[in-house]
Structure formats: structure tokens, C-alpha cells
């Protein structure tokens, strides 16, 4: 059994978000982290590895420095890493991204008992589209918003966290599961893991390696193969100075409610 965990290196948006003069995100000046939901997906995979001894592979698509993130995941306990990297893949939207990742997983081999874990969504694009699209392109079952995962042979039982409760879903492997942060607390790297992670295998898959895959077509990958294009991005306007509402208690509260209602806050 092999578990693929799809991970993304994202800018750390918890600190200061740097913006270029033209309104785009200044990624170069920001620290990068492993997307938080993806870390929970990795932890889930490693818990299954602790129980079954299965193989865990971290898969990412990104520029060459993303290899550093794969080393971190290997230091946590993943067995190996796969970096999908090439100029042809740049500028992909969710459709093209999932096309390429699905092709890479098909290229690496997806057996009957295998599972693919993804995070619910990445904190930079915030779309939550890539996981389900990978499942569609590989034609396997998908379960999203996993808050608890149990294995029972080839059956996977998943508790899906919904807005107002949860539902339990059973799926047959091979399947794809997207995980939420509430699922677990990701483990730290071990000292030995860090000392050894630079000797573990990281495979780089470029366009040449994947070009014979049926899903890979210059018309369906990269910027050219993306049905959507970003037309414009900008920083939301900052809130101005606060306004003091004059008047007695009741009057001031009415004024406040009117303002909140006008802005559709309530």
C-alpha cells in the first residue's frame, strides 16, 4: 500500500503580507511554509504508516526550491518525495494543476489499495478545487473535509466535517481524501529525520518525464491550458479612521445597527 500526499509550498500569510507596486503578491520577500491543511494530510498519512508500515510519498508541483519542503516532510516521516517542476507547468490554474498532478500520480502508479491525501485548500489561492479535480481526472472516489479517517482493509471510513454537523462516509480504495486542520496536530520533525532527510530520494518529474501521459497536452497545462486567467489583482482598501457615534445609548445603538446593516454585516 502506498499513500500519496499532495502538498503545496505557500507564502506564510500569518505575518506581514508583502504586496508589489502593481498589486500582485511579493512572494520573494515572504517566508514560505507547508500549507497548513497539507500538514494535517501528511500527519494522517503518517498515522496510517505507523499502524500498517505503508509507504508514504510527498508530491508537490512547484519551482526547484520546493524541494526543501519535501525534505521537511521526509524529516517528519515520509519515505520519499516527488517534485513536479518545469517551465511548461508555470501559470497553471486549478484545472491545469490537477491535470498535471493526476498525470504524475498515474505515471508513478496508483494501485488498488492506494490512497491520495490532500489538504482542504491552500492558504494562498484559497480555491479548494485541486483535490476534487485530481480525483475526477484519475476517475476515483473522493471524500472532502475529512475530520477523522479510519482504515478497514480496502474500506476507508471518513467523518466529513460540515458547517452544522458531520457525516460519515465509506469509500473503497483507491480514493482521494481532502483533510482539514481540525483532523489532527501534525508531528514535529525528529532530529534523526532531519539528519537523514538529505540522503533520501527526491524524484524530479519535468515535462519530458510526463509528456507521454495521456493527461499531458500542451493545450491543457500551464498558462496556455488554463481555462481561467487572472485579469487583475489588488489590495483591498484599508479601513479608514473609526467614527464615534454621538448621542444617548439607544440612539447610538440604532445608528450602529443602521451602519452595520448598510454594509450587510448583519
Amino acid at each position, binding site marked *: 500500500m502506498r499513500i500519496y500526499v499532495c502538498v503545496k509550498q505557500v507564502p506564510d500569510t500569518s505575518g506581514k503580507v508583502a504586496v508589489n507596486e502593481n498589486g500582485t503578491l511579493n512572494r520573494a520577500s515572504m517566508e514560505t511554509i507547508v500549507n497548513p491543511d497539507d500538514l494535517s494530510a501528511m500527519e494522517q498519512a503518517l498515522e496510517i504508516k505507523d499502524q500498517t508500515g505503508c509507504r508514504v510519498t510527498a508530491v508537490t508541483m512547484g519551482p526547484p526550491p520546493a524541494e*526543501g519542503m519535501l*525534505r*521537511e516532510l521526509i*524529516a517528519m516521516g515520509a519515505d520519499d518525495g516527488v517534485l513536479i517542476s518545469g517551465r511548461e507547468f508555470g501559470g497553471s490554474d486549478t484545472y491545469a494543476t490537477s491535470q498535471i498532478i493526476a498525470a504524475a500520480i498515474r505515471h508513478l502508479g496508483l494501485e488498488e489499495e492506494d490512497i491520495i491525501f490532500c489538504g482542504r485548500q491552500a492558504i494562498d489561492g484559497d480555491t479548494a478545487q485541486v483535490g476534487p479535480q485530481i480525483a475526477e481526472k484519475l476517475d476515483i472516489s473522493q471524500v472532502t473535509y475529512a475530520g477523522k479517517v479510519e482504515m478497514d482493509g480496502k474500506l476507508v471510513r471518513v467523518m466529513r466535517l460540515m458547517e452544522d454537523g458531520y457525516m460519515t462516509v465509506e469509500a473503497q480504495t483507491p480514493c482521494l481524501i481532502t483533510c482539514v486542520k481540525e483532523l489532527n496536530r501534525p508531528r*514535529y*520533525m*525528529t*532530529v*534523526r529525520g*532531519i*539528519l537523514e*532527510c*538529505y540522503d533520501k530520494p527526491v524524484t524530479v518529474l519535468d515535462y519530458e518525464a510526463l509528456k507521454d501521459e495521456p493527461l499531458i497536452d500542451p493545450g491543457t497545462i500551464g498558462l496556455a491550458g488554463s481555462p481561467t486567467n487572472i485579469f487583475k489583482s489588488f489590495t483591498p482598501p484599508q479601513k479608514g479612521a473609526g467614527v464615534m457615534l454621538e448621542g444617548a445609548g439607544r440612539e447610538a445603538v440604532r445608528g450602529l445597527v443602521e451602519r452595520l446593516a448598510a454594509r450587510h454585516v448583519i
Partner: protein
Amino acid sequence: MILSDKYKLLRKNFRNFAETEFTTEIQEQLDREGGFNWDLHYKMAKYGFMGIKLPVEYGGQGGDTLAYVLMVEEFARVCPVLSIYANTPNSLGSGPLLTCGTPEQKKKYIPPLASGEKKIVFALTEPGAGSDAGGTLTRAVKDGEYYVLSGRKCFISGAPLADYAVIYAKTNPALKGNKGISMFIVDMKLPGVSLGKPELKMGINGYPTSDIILENVRVHESDLLGPLDKGFSTALKTLDGGRLGVAAQSLGIAQCCLEESIRYAKERKQFGRPIAKFQAISFMIADMATEIEAAREMIYSTALAKDAGEKDAPMKCSMCKLFASEMANRVAYKAVQIHGGYGYMRDYKVERMYRDARITTIYEGTSQVQQMVIAGNLLK
């Protein structure tokens, strides 16, 4: 020093662990109530921190001295007492075993230290013998296959938690000074071993310290550690690692004081502007940062020199301990000063750091003993 990717990743992991796990609640509880946090001890052990620089063949992680000082620095930056948890098994606890132990002793005692299952403490100091170990009064008298130990050790960090202690005892009273002293591994459950009450300390509360009292304790000769009558001079060779650990602990304390001071100086307003805008305050911060950086470079490069087996590395370890511990006290003093009246209150972290910093110029060889070691090396 420019760290390679591997050491940057180690540092990131230590920092993440300390910032997440060493919560303010735990730190304040340890400072207020003393005791020991076993949960954190086991958690640190789980990730390999207890055996970071112990050899892989004895269950350690196989890291080097640079990895070790990075860990102690990052842990002490968040909580100095919790840095001691992972520091001890890597330095004083395992040092004498690694240098002097027989293969059987290493196999028996080191793996449980590396895994955090057992704890060993280093017991040298006595009420009448601190800096002058030659004043050791604890006696060990041979009786068949056993040595019979009697005496009293004081200020033994971790004694109330220990499974074993490395005890220094005079085996040949005819030999003067540091000669005629031997080391023994003493099981703390042996008949005749008892503890004094936990000491009430100014700082580093949360790692209990007490006396160990030995009354006719029979230790088997297989637990004699290192050569007979030469225990102290052999052990001296292991102390430099612990000294570098205290230097790294001092560095972490100072780094915390600097960060707290910068944050406070930018927030706190007096005379209509943040106090950081006043030259008197900003120059203090510049001095603190410069001294910290000097200590950091010295400690990291000494870690490399030690692993490379350079001849003057032990002296450099003393220099690191002397400079970094005195520096940490200067920096902590300024940090409290920058915080003004608030810095004297327990609600502000610099107050605890100021108390914790004080021990670093005393334990594992006072600043004066470090000066003796350094001068002794230079004036041979």
C-alpha cells in the same frame, strides 16, 4: 556563521517545538511551583532531543555539537529551565560514560538516557568542595567486589528525579588535590542512598536540586567508571561540552531579553513617542544585539572546533561559557531597565529571565574557574 540547510532546518524545528510546546502557562507554573514536567520530558525524548549528540549505536540521534548548541539556544530562548531538560542527558549525564565507560557500561546505561526512560545526574559538588574538587570528602573503601561509599553531595541538579548518579569519591586519601578521586555509577535505589529537601532557588525553578546523602552504600566494582584514582582528571575532559551547553543557554536567554526589549521599546510611549526613539534606549538595544552576535559566532565556531578535535577547543569552551554567561547577565539587566517598573513585575517575562540568567555564571564552573582554565592554558 552561515548555517547550511541541514542546521537551518534543525533550528527551525527546535524553535517551532519550543514556541508551541513551552506554553506561558507551563513556564509560569514551573517558576511558581517548582517540580518537574514529565510530559515535556517524554515529549522531548520522543523527538530525539535527549540523545541529540549521542552516538546512533547507543540509541542516540548521531548529531554533532553544533546541532546540540542550536537546540539549547532555541529552547532557552523560550524557557531556560526547559532547556536543561534536554541539555543534561547530552552533556553532564552521558559525558563521563562516553569518555570513560567500558563497552558494557555504555551499552547498559546510555540507551535508556537517549530514549528518556532513565535519568542520570552528575554529583561532584559537596558542601565543602565546589570550585575546589580536591576538597572532596566522600569516601569509597574497597570491600571484596564492592566499594562502600559514604558522604554528602550538594546542589545536585535533577537529583530528586534521578535513576542513577555519577558520584565522585576519594578512593586514595594519601593522594592530594584532584588525585586519588574515582567515579562511580550509583543506582539511586541502592540501600543507604537518600535525598535532601529540594532547594528553594532564585531561578531555573522546575528542575529540582537537592543533596544526595550516601551512608555505607555498597556499589559493585563493575560500576567503577574510568580508571581508579584518576576519575577527576579524566572527567575534567568531559566538562567542556557541558560548559558549551551553558554558554548556549546564556545565549538563548540573552536573545529572548533582546526580543522582549525591542517589542516593548516600540510599544511603550513616554513624552509623546515610543521609548525606542530615545537614543539612550536605542543604543542600549544596539549594544545588547552586538554582544549577543559576538557570543553566537564564538559558540558556533567553538562547537565546530570541538568536533574537529582542535587542541585549544576545551579552552575555547571555557571562553564561551565565561563570555556568554556574563553577557547574558548584562543583557538581562538592560532588558529589565528598558522595561522600567513593569520589568520588575512577574507579569513581564524579562523578570524571570533576569533571575534565570544569574545561575549561568556560577554552575558548571564559575566565571572565576573559567578564567583560571583560560589563564592556565595561556600561561603554561
